[in-house]
């Protein structure tokens, strides 16, 4: 099973009482606002869930794995996600050490 925007919109329709249009727009806006904050260099902290942070990575040497040719990996800014202690603890517990 995979959770997608469609399921989240259904949930807002059923549980929050938004109409279908509003529910769909709200889910879209939720991720849009997080994207906007990250785009402007602002990290996002969602307590109980986790934090989205930005990291500036310097240029580093890399190579084309097919040809072995060396090509530099350019400097870039990337998004990292750190799950909250609560989410980590809840996820960890579930499988109790069994592999997928």
């Amino acid at each position, binding site marked *: *099973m*995979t*959770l*997608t*925007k469609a*399921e*989240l919109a259904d*949930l*807002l329709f059923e*549980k*929050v*009482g*938004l109409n279908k249009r*509003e529910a769909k*727009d*709200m*889910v879209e*806006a*939720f*991720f849009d*606002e*997080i*994207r906007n*904050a*990250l*785009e*402007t*260099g*602002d*990290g*996002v*902290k*969602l*307590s*109980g*869930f*986790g934090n*989205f942070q*930005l990291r*500036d990575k310097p240029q580093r040497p890399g190579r084309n794995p097919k040809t072995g040719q060396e090509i530099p990996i350019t400097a*870039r*800014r*990337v*998004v*990292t*996600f750190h*799950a909250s202690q609560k*989410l*980590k603890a*809840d*996820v*960890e517990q*579930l*499988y109790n*050490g*069994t*592999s*997928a």
Partner: protein
Amino acid sequence: MTKSELIARLAERFPQLVAKDADFAVKMILDAMSDALVRGDRIEIRGFGSFALNYRPPRTGRNPKSGDKVSVPAKWVPHFKAGKELRERVDKAS
């Protein structure tokens, strides 16, 4: 940006809704996302990214203070991979 700032921005974008709706919607979305991961499900948001669980095999660790060996059991950890649009927009802005 914090959760309450996110709620405030959404409330502004939906003036036809009462402020409580944005608050409830954000909590509902985050709960649904947490629940999915706790069930072992993936989350896939087009243009944003995907969340999944990564497996960490059991290992023998050490207590850094005493040097004693401790066995660390296998576990699952949440992992986020940024989608193409998010990756490009964040990088372009830097």
